[in-house]
């Protein structure tokens, strides 16, 4: 009985002591701790539960501690939410950024762009918005854009890099920065822009064949090549059938970049010559193409690219007049077409000259070229026939040459005639008009003949502006 009473007293004393300041495996619990555990072999084990079980705790006390088996972290209730030990506030955002690839190359031959995927994995308790930013020092004509610049919770965005054939080659880091609430994550993508061949044209040249003149790799070896045409340089052609600038025999998967600060001017068509009275003249020669592509091309054109103007048509009339009082007389008359810009020659009388003929004039060249005019016959011609005199007044005009990028025109034939008869006087002779279609002027050459290839930098269309004259297309 005594032994039992003594034990009870000891327990009570212990309980009284423990309720004050309890130490386990220590006789001197820290005075600031209500419970002081000491061990070199065991740990403290709080209640272990899943997030679901944790959230089922009704009215958790502030400071209540558990071990969350769902995400293997110690958590405590701060009176508002269950906090991780490292968490600063209830709404702190936790996320990672992952790239599907950390580097890429743009060769500028087959492609001028690339894309990579950015995945945001958010582990926050509640989904939040992550803003994405691309931080870089890319060259001036290269752009980087995101398919979406925010991700809510977890998700992805695609970054697309588009470069230009004219930008400097090199390796360019692009930082992908994600900001969610007060947290920031950064990943780096390394962009490599491959180099291209470089060609500079700094002296006037005609009939320029890019591949041949520079001995560039031909068919079978696609390349990219950048051509710089210096200010004031004129690239011309000597014949309308030869382009002023021709990509030449490059592989058709190649990519050409042209940065033109000069003048690329095609040869204009020659004005038609004479000789063809059966068709009332000849068709004017077609103007030449300024630039003919044989592969994908990108152009920056602060300079000028001018297609050749068509040559003017010639006109010719060989006819026998049957007239009372006189009988018959013949008239051979005609005029040449004017030359198209640039440098189209005016039409001459040709191999079988008509007796009365006016040459067309030549076109000039250069930035402000003047196309040639058709020959003009409008001075009355007096033809004495015995005592009678015939006066033929022609209105015969050869077609005008076209300015850059403009077709040559058709000519005009009209004749009035009168007869001076002794005693009677002068009678007007009603010459029937020529109603058949006259030959047409030559067609203008292309400003840029795409020749089935892709052109970047200028749209299709027919232009007459300071920089482009003629059609871009085909």
């Amino acid at each position, binding site marked *: 009985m005594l032994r039992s009473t003594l034990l009870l007293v000891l327990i009570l004393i212990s309980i009284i002591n423990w309720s004050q300041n309890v130490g386990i495996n220590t006789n001197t619990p820290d005075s600031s701790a209500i419970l002081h555990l000491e061990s070199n072999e065991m740990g403290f084990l709080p209640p272990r539960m899943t997030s679901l079980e944790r959230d089922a705790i009704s009215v958790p006390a502030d400071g209540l501690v558990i071990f969350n088996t769902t995400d293997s972290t110690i958590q405590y209730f701060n009176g508002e939410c269950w906090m991780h030990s490292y968490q600063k506030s209830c709404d702190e955002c936790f996320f990672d950024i992952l790239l599907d690839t950390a580097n890429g190359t743009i060769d500028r031959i087959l492609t001028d762009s690339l894309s990579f995927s950015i995945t945001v994995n958010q582990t926050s308790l509640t989904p939040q918005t992550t803003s994405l930013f691309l931080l870089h020092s890319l060259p001036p004509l290269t752009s980087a854009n995101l398919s979406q610049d925010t991700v809510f919770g977890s998700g992805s965005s695609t970054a697309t890099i588009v470069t230009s054939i004219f930008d400097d080659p090199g390796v360019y880091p692009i930082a992908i920065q994600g900001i969610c609430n007060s947290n920031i994550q950064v990943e780096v993508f390394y962009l490599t822009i491959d180099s291209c061949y470089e060609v500079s044209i700094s002296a006037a040249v005609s009939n320029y064949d890019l591949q041949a003149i520079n001995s560039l790799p031909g068919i079978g070896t696609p390349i990219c090549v950048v051509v710089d045409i210096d200010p004031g340089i004129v690239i011309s052609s000597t014949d309308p059938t030869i382009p002023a600038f021709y990509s030449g025999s490059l592989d058709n998967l190649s990519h050409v970049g042209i940065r033109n600060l000069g003048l690329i001017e095609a040869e204009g068509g020659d004005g038609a010559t004479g000789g063809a009275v059966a068709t009332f003249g000849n068709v004017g020669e077609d103007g030449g193409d300024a630039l003919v592509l044989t592969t994908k091309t990108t152009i920056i054109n602060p300079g000028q690219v001018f297609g050749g103007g068509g040559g003017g048509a010639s006109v010719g009339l060989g006819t*026998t007049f049957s007239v*009372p009082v*006189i*009988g*018959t007389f013949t008239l051979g008359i005609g005029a040449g077409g004017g030359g198209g810009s640039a440098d189209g020659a005016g039409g001459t009388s040709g191999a079988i000259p008509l007796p009365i003929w006016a040459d067309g004039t030549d076109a000039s060249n250069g930035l402000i070229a003047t196309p040639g005019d058709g020959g003009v016959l409008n001075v009355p011609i007096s033809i004495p026939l*015995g005592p009678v005199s015939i006066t033929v007044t022609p209105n015969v005009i050869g077609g005008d040459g076209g300015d850059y990028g403009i077709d040559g025109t058709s000519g005009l034939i009209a004749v009035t005639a009168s007869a001076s008869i*002794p*005693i009677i006087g002068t009678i007007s002779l009603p010459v029937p008009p020529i109603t058949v279609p006259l030959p047409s002027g030559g067609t203008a050459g292309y400003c840029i003949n795409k020749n089935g290839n892709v052109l970047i930098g200028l749209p299709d269309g027919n232009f007459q502006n300071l920089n482009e004259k003629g059609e871009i297309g085909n």
Partner: protein
Amino acid sequence: MKTFLTFLALTFSSLAIAGFEGIITTEVLNNGTRISTTWFIGKDRLKLHMQYKVNEDTISVDFILSKGSDVMTIVTDSKGYKGYSFLEKSTISSELNFENLAFKNHENKDSNETKYQGSNNKYHCAIWILDLDIDLFDYAPFFKADPAFHLIANHRLKGFPKNSLLTNHNGELIYSSTVTNILHQKLPETDFEIPNGFKKRELVELEYQK
């Protein structure tokens, strides 16, 4: 020559009574080219016949008129153009500037002709009108290159121009016409008709060379 003129004068004076019908032949010098012309003068019809060479082709032309008509019929017989065509009076003009020729008459009382003289800033002109019973007034608008017809029209004269002379102020002969023969006879209607074998043609027909 005097005998011939006396003969003409006597003939004309006798014919003036009944109205002239017959054939008058003249010789014309036009800008240095000599042309023989024949006037067939009917009651209400007139035909001027010319024949000349153009290159190697001899061309025979008749200009046929009816009083009161605005249309002249031209009958041409040549290698290159055989047929007849019509010419409106309004389409005839003259390069010769007769408009302000101021004529004055100096009648010769001793003969049956009257001399008219006129001049303007370009020409001097002298015309002798035979006193024949011929009224060319209606036909005058069709003969604008002959100063005599200008005189006849302006002075409403009867008669026929025996001589016409037109010079420039340098004395160069521009035009002259001289009657060489007058034959008084009744003319058959066929003289004023289009001969058989002549077809209507346009004033200008073109054949383009091939």
